[in-house]
């Protein structure tokens, strides 16, 4: 499987998407000067901007790499030559997934470091009322990474059943939007404000809440921006959730892909 991971990482580094991301990453350099426009919460704004930009880049990477990686291999008929090697379908698929996840990790490490530098620069020029809790910032970035790796697992799942790029790309975007809204929708449906809703709607909302990913669990931004202490539970539970949910998605994708016919 290491061979598959290596060749897929090489594919990503030689892809135009990678070069595009490097260009977008240059926007990080603008953060201190843009943050200074707020006049008051410069550090907080710089953290918000840095985290948002990092999140946007990871989202673009997750969709562009996750949703097209497998589809491209099938579309360009690379699968005929690769899957005829003594390589199991599961190791091929998991290898591809690990390559994308590793690239996201690498991108997060590099861009996260750049983001922290920019935040440090902005906070040095305009000191914040509350000190920056760097550990919170690191955990927030790490949680964001987990969220996008989970999204990539969804993209792979869609790719295993689809014959075009339509479902992997738009399905992944839909899951991203739904995953970000699922907690709010669930909270609303089970709040006194929604007491007029029928029980069927409430049950359906609960069903989708448990089926769809809950990306709110990975949102530690408030803690990072305002230096609010994080409980152990707020860190451990999302990690466990990520491990179980992502494993299930990858296993399901592998089962489907193993049965897929390479016509």
């Amino acid at each position: 499987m290491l061979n598959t991971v290596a060749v897929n990482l090489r594919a990503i580094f030689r892809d135009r998407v990678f070069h595009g991301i490097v260009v977008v990453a240059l926007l990080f350099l603008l953060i201190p000067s843009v943050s200074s426009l707020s006049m008051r919460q410069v550090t907080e704004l710089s953290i918000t901007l840095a985290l948002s930009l990092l999140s946007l880049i990871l989202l673009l990477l997750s969709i562009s790499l996750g949703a097209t990686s497998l589809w491209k291999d099938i579309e360009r008929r690379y699968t005929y030559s690769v899957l005829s090697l003594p390589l199991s379908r599961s190791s091929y698929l998991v290898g591809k997934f690990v390559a994308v996840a590793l690239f996201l990790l690498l991108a997060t490490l590099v861009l996260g470091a750049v983001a922290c530098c920019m935040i440090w620069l902005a906070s040095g020029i305009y000191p914040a009322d509350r000190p920056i809790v760097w550990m919170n910032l690191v955990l927030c970035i790490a949680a964001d990474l987990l969220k996008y790796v989970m999204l990539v697992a969804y993209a792979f799942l869609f790719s295993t059943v689809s014959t075009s790029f339509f479902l992997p790309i738009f399905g992944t975007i839909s899951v991203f939007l739904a995953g970000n809204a699922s907690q709010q929708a669930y909270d609303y449906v089970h709040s006194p404000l929604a007491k007029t809703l029928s029980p069927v709607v409430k049950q359906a909302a609960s069903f989708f809440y448990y089926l769809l990913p809950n990306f709110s669990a990975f949102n530690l931004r408030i803690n990072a921006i305002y230096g609010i202490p994080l409980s152990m539970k707020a860190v451990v539970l999302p990690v466990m959730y990520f491990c179980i949910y992502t494993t299930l998605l990858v296993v399901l994708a592998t089962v489907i892909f193993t049965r897929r016919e390479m016509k």
Partner: protein
Amino acid sequence: MHAIEFDELSKVFQGKKKVTVNALNSLSLQVAQGEVFGFLGPNGAGKSTSIKILLGLIGSTAGTARIMGVDVTEKSARSDVGFLPENPSFYDFLTGEEYLRFVGKSFNMSAADISAGSSDVLKRLDLWEARKRPIRGYSKGMVQRLGLAQTLIHDPSVYVLDEPMSGLDPIGRALVKDIIRELKERGKTVFFSTHITADVEAVCDRVGVINKGVLLAVDTVSGVLERGVEGYTVRVLKPDGASEERVVAKADLQEFIEKSMAQRWAIERVEPKRKDMEAFFLEMVSPKQTSG
């Protein structure tokens, strides 16, 4: 143990609107070790379907297939096989050399073996100069030759080649035929599909003809050619010095020779006049057309 074995293999494709296509119908075939077998059939006959099942790319609806005794649903069945797909496509962001390294690693070859094997096959297939160029810059013929290179690098016992001459110029085709002959001399098994009868005639020991998913005939190439003798062209030299060519039916050859001797005609040449592989193939796949 046979190198390749199909046992009552069937494949039904489910199309849209519940339309089913019987791509393969109870295909049973054995290819012996060290044999060069040509799988001949028109487009859409079921050749590629059989090969895809053999390489585990698609599953069979019924029946089994084995390579060196191992069921093709096991990945280990592919561990001693070199496969060239039809119109091959390889990771085009890699260079030819990098791709061969990837293939070598997939077969658990050591770095030294990969390096030596890669040099050998790249030189043999005239890709040495292009080895450091990305595959996306290769011509169709170069990709086809790289496809052959990646089947050779790990020196497997069984070669499965789907239309190996496709996209090659005459020099490339001659090269592929030479390689197949070399493989035969080294005791390797080659199973290749084609719809070009001359290729089968040139390199194969046996031939199987498939059409519409049904295996119509399996025979030795020499057997097909011998059975196809329809008559002879005999060149005689008459006592007055004039030479003449006569076409003699197979059954009449003995009588003609005796008459010629009696008339003191000198027989200069006797050439069998036979149907070639193409006629045999056409007879198999469209008997009505050829007989009419």
